C-alpha cells in the first residue's frame, strides 16, 4: 500500500497521499479511496488480464462530464504501466451511496427514490447526446453478435438462451440512432444521495450503439434488486420513458425498450457464466464469483417470464 501511495503521489505531482483504502475488488479492477494533499479522490486500477482499454473509458468519462452528465471529474489517467503498476484513472470523489439495497430500503433515500426514475431518464438522454467523435477507440458493438460469441466461447451451451436468441433475432427492432451507450447503467453503478442521482459511475462498458440498450438494461429484473418497480427498481416504464422523451425531444417505442430488456436479461445470464469462469480459470479465485455461476438459472427464469405471451 505504501508503494502504491508513493507511486500515486508521483503520478499526481502531489506532495502527500494519505488514507489510501481499498474499497472493492472485482474481476477486472480494484477501487481505492485516498486523499492527495487533502483532496478526496478515487483510484480505479486495472487488474492484469483485463483486456479493455482504460484510456478509452477515461476519454468517455471526460466527454460525458463536459456534456453535463452527473458524473465524477477525471483528475488523471494513464495506460502506461510504468506510472503506478497498471492502467488507472483518478476521479473526484462524489459522496453518496451505491449499494442498491440501501438506496431502495433506507429512510434517508425516501425522497431520492421518488425522483430517481425521472433523473435516470434525463441522465440517459444526456449521455446519449454526448459528442464522442473525438474519442479514439470507442467501438460500435452489435450486442447480439457479441454476446452470442461470448456465450459460445465459454463452451457451456444453454437451451434457454438459444430460445431467447431465436426470439431476439425474429423481433429485432430497426435501429434509428447510433450514440454513446453507457453499457451498465443501473443501481450499483450510480452514486445516489438524499436528493437523488449524484453521479453516473463505471463507464468501462461504454460503446457506440442503439441508445435504447441502456433503457432496456436498466429494466432487467436483476437490477430491480427485489423491488416491484421495473425501471431500475425505482419507477415505472412510463416515468423513465417520459423523462427521457422530455429531455431528448424524441418519442420512444416501449416495445423497443422491452426488446432490449430481454437482451439485457440474456446478457446478464451470460455474464454470470463469465464471472464463474473468472474463478474456475484462476483469473480471480473467489467463492463469491463461483456462486454467481449458479445464478444463470435466475436469468433463464426471467427470460421465460419476460417472453410469456410473446413467443
Amino acid at each position: 500500500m505504501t508503494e502504491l501511495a508513493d507511486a500515486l503521489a508521483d503520478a499526481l505531482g502531489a506532495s502527500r497521499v494519505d488514507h489510501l483504502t481499498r474499497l472493492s475488488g472485482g474481476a477486472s479492477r480494484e477501487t481505492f479511496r485516498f486523499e492527495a494533499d487533502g483532496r478526496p479522490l478515487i483510484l480505479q486500477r486495472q487488474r492484469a488480464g483485463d483486456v479493455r482499454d482504460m484510456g478509452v473509458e477515461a476519454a468517455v468519462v471526460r466527454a460525458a462530464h463536459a456534456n453535463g452528465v452527473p458524473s465524477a471529474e477525471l483528475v488523471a489517467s494513464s495506460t502506461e504501466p510504468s506510472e503506478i503498476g497498471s492502467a488507472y484513472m483518478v476521479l473526484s470523489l462524489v459522496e453518496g451511496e451505491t449499494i442498491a439495497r440501501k438506496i431502495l430500503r433506507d429512510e434517508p433515500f425516501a425522497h431520492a427514490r421518488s425522483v430517481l426514475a425521472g433523473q435516470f431518464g434525463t441522465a440517459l438522454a444526456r449521455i446519449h447526446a454526448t459528442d464522442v467523435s473525438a474519442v479514439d477507440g470507442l467501438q460500435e458493438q452489435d450486442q447480439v453478435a457479441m454476446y452470442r460469441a461470448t456465450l459460445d466461447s465459454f463452451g457451456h451451451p444453454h437451451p434457454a438462451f438459444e430460445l431467447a436468441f431465436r426470439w431476439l433475432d425474429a423481433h429485432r427492432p430497426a435501429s434509428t440512432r447510433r450514440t454513446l451507450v453507457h453499457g451498465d447503467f443501473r443501481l450499483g453503478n450510480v452514486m445516489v444521495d438524499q436528493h437523488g442521482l449524484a453521479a453516473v459511475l463505471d463507464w468501462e462498458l461504454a460503446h457506440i450503439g442503439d441508445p435504447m440498450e441502456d433503457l432496456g438494461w436498466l429494466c432487467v429484473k436483476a437490477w430491480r434488486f427485489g423491488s416491484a418497480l421495473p425501471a431500475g427498481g425505482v419507477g415505472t416504464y412510463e416515468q423513465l420513458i417520459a423523462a427521457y422523451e422530455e429531455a431528448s425531444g424524441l418519442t420512444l417505442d416501449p416495445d423497443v425498450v422491452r426488446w432490449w430488456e430481454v437482451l439485457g436479461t440474456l446478457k446478464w445470464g451470460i455474464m454470470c457464466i463469465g464471472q464463474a469462469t473468472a474463478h474456475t480459470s484462476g483469473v480471480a479465485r473467489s467463492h463469491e464469483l463461483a456462486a454467481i455461476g449458479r445464478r444463470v438459472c435466475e436469468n433463464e427464469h426471467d427470460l421465460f417470464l419476460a417472453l410469456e405471451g410473446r413467443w
Partner: protein
Amino acid sequence: MSAPHDMPSAAELVEAVREWLERDVLTGTQGRLQFHTRVAINVLSMVERELIVGPEQAAAHAARLAELGVADDAELAARIRNGEMDDQAEAVRAAVWASVRDKLAVANPKYLSAE
C-alpha cells in the same frame, strides 16, 4: 447409501460446516468478511440441496431430453439454434422451463416462491 464411506453423509458434513458458519463465524465477523461468510453459507446450502435432490433431477432431465430426441443440453441448444426444433417449439419450451425450475430449486428456491 454412499458405501464404502461412513456416516455422516456428504450432505450432512456440508450441513455441519454450514451450521458452524451460521452459529460462530457470522456472529463474530463484520463488513466484507461477514458478507463473504453469508455467501459461503448460501453456497453450502445449495450443495446440500443438490446432494439430496440432484440424482432425481438428473433422471428427470434425461427423461425430458430423451422425449425430445436429443442426447444432452448441448445437442438441444444446437438444434434450437439451427431451427430444427421449431416444429415442436411448445414441447421444447415446456422441457427447458422444467429444467430451469429444477436448477432454481437447488440454486435459489426463494426465487421460485417469489414468482
